[in-house]
């Protein structure tokens, strides 16, 4: 398809999540973008390159020779004060891992899109969240989105929060491979004026690398310094919560969006007995299943986690403690973890440890490699969670759903 300058000014667009983020790059006036091919994230770069070719987006656009270089190049561009964007998927994200790690300590507000993809071997294109989750301990802010419109908003949020001088941390937007990267939805576009009002220019202040500010950045340290530096990064991540809340309020006001809570989305939870919790696009079958089960009189709901880092522990503690049982759906795995649970399961289990009453909990692993999460399998997960609500505990704490035996 062809994109031209006039397209992005349309109030309503039929675009994929990748295209939405590419357009966000143009509206945010990103300065440096690096690309390297890997399915499915690279759709965003195909749109970026076309926007550049058509003159809609003006930036330095570099086709790197590897993901490692892709992320290193934008890292250094960010250090001289340029707004940057890049991205990857699956093992490509892992190839860049060194660059991903160092960006946090350097406190550079890199914004990246992860088109979630299963890790090799065997090669597989479909979605799995293990790629993005691998950086969860390092200081990356991690966002999972559900729709193309949310992907666009999340991109503006990412630059705004990452580039906030109180934060200066990188931020990755996770978009489920195929469901967001390759399928198109109707998006209500903000105007350029609204974007400009929401997103101030990136100002690196006196951390900018320039002959007029001849600082030394990231000299070698030893045990006399490193723990202090980690503590600083930790403090920045802790500050991110308030900055996100502030930014979401502004976005709701300026873009006329109605996001009630910046961190989690609750669907029909008010009077629910049991809920399932998950991230990303599996909310589609889950929401349908909630409605069908409610037609049968079953009080069920769904909670979608939007920010994984900073982890919305306070929100989830309030939201989840009132249910008779909760089921956590992971589109990822953490082999050998407690209860053999997935990553989200383990995190939520930890977040609820101090909560009274603490709801009984069960974990599910499903949809790996992009396998469809069906209404049937969603119903099965609700049924299992009801069983837990009845007995008060999970006989088997973790189930793999939709696996041929």
């Amino acid at each position: 398809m062809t994109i031209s300058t006039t397209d992005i000014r349309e109030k309503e667009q039929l675009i994929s999540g990748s295209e939405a983020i590419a357009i966000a790059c143009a509206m945010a006036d990103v300065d440096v973008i690096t690309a390297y091919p890997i399915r499915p994230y690279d759709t965003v770069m195909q749109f970026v390159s076309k926007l550049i070719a058509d003159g809609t987006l003006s930036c330095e656009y570099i086709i790197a020779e590897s993901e490692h270089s892709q992320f290193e190049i934008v890292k250094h561009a960010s250090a001289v004060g340029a707004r940057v964007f890049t991205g990857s998927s699956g093992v490509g994200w892992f190839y860049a891992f060194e660059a991903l790690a160092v960006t946090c300590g350097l406190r550079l507000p890199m914004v990246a899109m992860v088109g979630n993809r299963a890790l090799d071997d065997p090669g597989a294109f479909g979605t799995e969240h293990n790629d993005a989750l691998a950086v969860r301990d390092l200081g990356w802010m991690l966002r999972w989105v559900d729709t193309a419109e949310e992907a666009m908003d999340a991109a503006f949020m990412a630059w705004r929060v990452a580039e906030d001088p109180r934060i200066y941390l990188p931020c990755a937007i996770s978009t489920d491979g195929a469901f967001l990267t390759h399928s198109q939805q109707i998006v209500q576009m903000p105007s350029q004026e609204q974007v400009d009002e929401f997103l101030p220019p990136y100002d690196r202040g006196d951390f900018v690398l320039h002959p007029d500010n001849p600082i030394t950045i990231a000299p070698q340290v030893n045990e006399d310094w490193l723990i202090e530096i980690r503590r600083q990064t930790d403090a920045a991540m802790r500050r991110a919560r308030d900055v996100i809340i502030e930014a979401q309020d502004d976005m709701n006001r300026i873009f006329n969006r109605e996001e009630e809570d910046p961190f989690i989305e609750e669907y029909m939870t008010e009077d629910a007995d049991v809920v399932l919790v998950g991230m990303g696009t599996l909310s589609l079958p889950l929401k349908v299943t909630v409605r069908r089960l409610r037609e049968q009189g079953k009080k069920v709901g769904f909670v979608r986690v939007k920010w994984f880092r900073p982890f919305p522990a306070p929100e989830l503690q309030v939201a989840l403690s009132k249910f008779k049982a909760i089921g956590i759906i992971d589109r990822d795995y953490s082999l050998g973890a407690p209860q053999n649970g997935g990553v989200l399961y383990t995190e939520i289990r930890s977040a609820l440890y101090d909560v009274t009453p603490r709801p009984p909990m069960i974990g599910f692993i499903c949809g790996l490699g992009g396998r469809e999460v069906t209404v049937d399998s969603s119903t099965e997960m609700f049924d299992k969670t009801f069983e837990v609500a009845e007995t008060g505990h999970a006989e088997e704490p973790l189930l793999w759903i939709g696996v041929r035996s």
Partner: protein
Amino acid sequence: MAVTAVEVVYRGIFQRLLSRAICRTIVLAARKEGKIGTAFGRYSDSPERNGIPAKYFAVVADDPLELQETLAQYEPKAVDVSIVVDDSLCKGVESWAWYGLQPINELTKEGGTVLVTSIQESADLLEDMHVKDTPYNLAIVKGPKSFSGLWVYKDDHTDVRILGALAKVCPQLVGIDAYKETIREQWDELKETSANRAYDRVQSTPVEPGQGNPEEPFSFDMPGWETMEEALVVRPVSVGGGFRGGEGGFQPERNEVFKKWSTRTMRPVINFETCTKCTLCWLQCPDTCFDVTPEGLYDSDMESCCGCGVCEDVCPVPECITMVHESNFNDNSSQHDHWKRDRDGYMAWLEEMRAASTTEKADVGRTHGFYEVGQYEKEFEQTGVAGDD
């Protein structure tokens, strides 16, 4: 509890193999007495650099539980013996990894010993060693410093002579018989003899509180996480300007935090009267240590000189630059200032320094590292065991 700890303070790379040989042999000899121990280097010194001070440790206990109690993985908080294998380290230690000058005797326990290999007398060494408020002993193993490099070990018996002396000054660690047996197994009977001779000859003198160099050592207060700059940023050194703040010449600004006072074993002494202003010492100095005077002379700054000697080697004028052992200096003042102030006095002092250098070369050689294949063997043939008279 019978736990004994020793440190070997050494010159990075030059004495890396030596310090390891000493500490390993201590622990292996302790086994002969039924004790147990561990030998380890300070990890933050481990990307060692030529000449930059570093430390290796041996900790020995009667049984494994006692050894555990010492937490012997980190630098011990106190040691029974501080072994110093290059006497210019008596001026203090600025390690590769940290900031500030650690007095050489800082870790030495009350009643413990600083054991130095040196051709100097104890009174000379005490001029350099910082005062301590507890008494200790200063023992000397007579001999020059033993420097080699990473690959070719200079087997001049310095290792076993130190062990023999150690048996005398700290018999509770390991006795001479266990050392002798271990040395015989590891090396040969000749080295066993050297150890025994050092045991017999080592001289130890008591040092009273307050005796020594009264200077306050250079120190640095480390900021905490709330006051450190974020984003791994360090503010730069500014460029500098004219010589001594004046119009002509050039004097670089120098880093305030890390000085090279303790990195060098010798320093250049310059004859400003024969200098032809060829620029080579200044241009070829890896440490940017030369200030350029308005008249185009080069004054080496002792905060940044690490004593490599490249300037002497590149200088085309005979004896215009002479590297002189650190023991001949008690301060870091400017030679150019001295020369400007008092030319005759300076030239007389210069002659003294040159003579000291010539004597040192004749007595013990001056190389600090490998010069050519066969050199160490030749030296050993000519001079025999280091310091053996």
